[in-house]
């Protein structure tokens, strides 16, 4: 293959990703370390100490949400993989379908349902259980995260489980393994890649969300995403916004790194529509 051809084919993407993927990251660093006059400063980094609480609750709530989606999603994925092959595709589609409803509307509708005079509280009042305050609580925000990202936990686990060779499981049972051990020694290890994938696909959007906390947190729960949004769109303090984003990126990188230590070898390429 002629070298010129290779250069010709490769350069558009190299240029594009340099300009619009790499450079922006450096610009974030630039803004994080400068002030309004362009002078170098650590002020924006120092200011981060006031936001420790926001970082803690963001990571905390998304971890809880991730664990919940894992606990719920794992059995569901298993169920799906055991269903008759004909219905598996349809059932998988059913699980993914709610994701096709716009994120904003999904969350907004839950806000309506959970509001003080919303549908859920109306039903509870009828049952004499009195109105319960759902919105503005950490529970509501975690609930929102679980709702919005549960299918992203189910999908990869299901994919891995569906590929599992049934004859392996049969062989294990024939050799005397009881149900629990079949799961612990065979299914669990083989499903780990799916679990890792699921954890990533739930944790990353959860920790960085602002819309879910805005709508379900009643403006009382400020996650990192909320603080960034406020700096960028209301206070127009791009420098503080940049330093907050920088820390968020670091958090994501660290969690990616931790996840990589758990999974074996290279990740699978090829995402199927």
């Amino acid at each position, binding site marked *: 293959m002629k070298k010129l051809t290779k250069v010709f084919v490769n350069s558009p993407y190299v240029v594009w990703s340099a300009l619009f993927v790499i450079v922006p990251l450096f610009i974030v660093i630039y803004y994080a370390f400068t002030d309004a006059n362009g002078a170098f400063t650590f002020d924006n980094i120092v200011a981060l100490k*006031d936001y420790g609480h926001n970082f803690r609750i963001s990571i905390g709530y998304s971890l809880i949400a991730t664990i919940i989606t894992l606990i719920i999603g794992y059995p569901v994925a298993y169920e799906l993989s055991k269903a008759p092959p004909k219905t598996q595709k349809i059932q998988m589609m059913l699980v993914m379908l709610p994701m096709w409803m716009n994120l904003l509307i999904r969350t907004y509708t839950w806000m309506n349902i959970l509001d*003080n*005079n919303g549908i859920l509280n109306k039903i509870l009042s009828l049952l004499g259980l009195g109105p319960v*305050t759902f919105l*503005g609580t950490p529970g509501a925000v975690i609930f929102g995260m679980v709702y919005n990202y549960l299918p992203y936990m189910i999908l990869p686990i299901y994919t891995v489980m569906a590929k599992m060779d049934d004859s392996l499981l049969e062989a294990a049972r024939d050799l005397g393994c009881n149900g629990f051990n079949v799961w612990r020694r065979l299914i669990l290890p083989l499903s780990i890649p799916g679990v890792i994938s699921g954890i990533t696909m739930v944790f990353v959007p959860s920790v960085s969300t602002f819309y879910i906390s805005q709508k379900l947190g009643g403006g*009382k729960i400020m996650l990192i995403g909320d603080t960034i949004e406020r700096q960028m769109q209301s206070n*127009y303090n791009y420098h503080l916004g940049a330093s907050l984003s920088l820390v968020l990126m670091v958090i994501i990188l660290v969690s990616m790194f931790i996840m990589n230590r758990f999974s074996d070898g290279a990740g699978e390429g090829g995402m199927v529509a």
Partner: protein
Amino acid sequence: MKKIVCVIVACAMLIALAALPVSCKRNDTVANLEGDYTGLEGTSLYIVNWGEYISDGSEGTLDIIKAFEKTTGINVTYDDSTPSNEAMYAKLKSGAVAVDIVIPSDYMIQRMIKEDMLQKIDTSKIPNYKYILDEYKNLYFDPQNEYSVPYNVGMVGVIYNKTMVEGTPDSWNLLWDSKYTNNILSFSNPRDAFATAQFLLGQDVNNTDKALWDAAAEKLKEQTPVLQSRVMDEVFNKMEGGNAAVAPYYAGDYLLMKSINDDLEFFYPKEGTNIFVDSMCIPKSARNYEAALMFINFMLENEVALANAEYLCYASAHSGVVNNPDYSFKDNEILYPDSEHKPKTQYFYDLDPEIRSYYEKLWEGIVR
């Protein structure tokens, strides 16, 4: 292959949806226009306004923007996503967008004039300016009427749901009452929020004493545990749906909410409250000055001003509206209280940068 066909069909459906001609049910025609609206066809106009702050054609009302576009042939970008004066200021300052018309409140206009962000408006080119009532001319923030044309007049009060609140409250301390914990809303912008505390503490809302602002900030922090949420336009759904019991908000918006939920009542707090005038201004960054003038003149057309006043339910500064016997809020006791019921009011003045950044820092500490 079949998959591709499916995609194309679905796309075609969506595109067809999008290309559907606008149904003629739309009310976008104004009959008796006094001004001349020719000469600027094909040009563009970028307007920044508050949310839900213009008659938009819903439920048979006049769609003012569409009517303006139809009458003048100008393409309007109507940006109503900025929820506060501070955000409007920041939007103009950041230069992210070139704005032709902006409709901030009095004190923000005062600041923008001080910082040379606005252009002078040649009122001789706005024939309908004659309709502006004298009492809204030569106001403190624009004494020579050079930079602004009044859009709306309003006062802040407290809305409450009479089925959820006992008695007839008359004081700002209703917003701190722990009896209604998690059922109280407040403002999500710092100036309005601080004012609720300042009025309650008997302070001047335009004071420059940092210690007083600290006291107001402490009062606001005391409020956080009983607050359900800090809102602006979200207040409509909350109060109309009975999801909250108490909310401070603007008198005109109360009338709107009342028409949906009759359990809502309103009062002007005895400690005093904020009066404001929102006016149309033309930023220095405007690219279409002539169209901006045309827009202002259009807003002052009798029919248009009446339609807007009816839609917004705010008090109007337009003589043609307030003297119109068909105006449904003529002499309304909330919008136009007589001398007996007029509340104690204060305008917000623009505060100098030192105090401003001080209270903005206090605010960040409250909402963080």
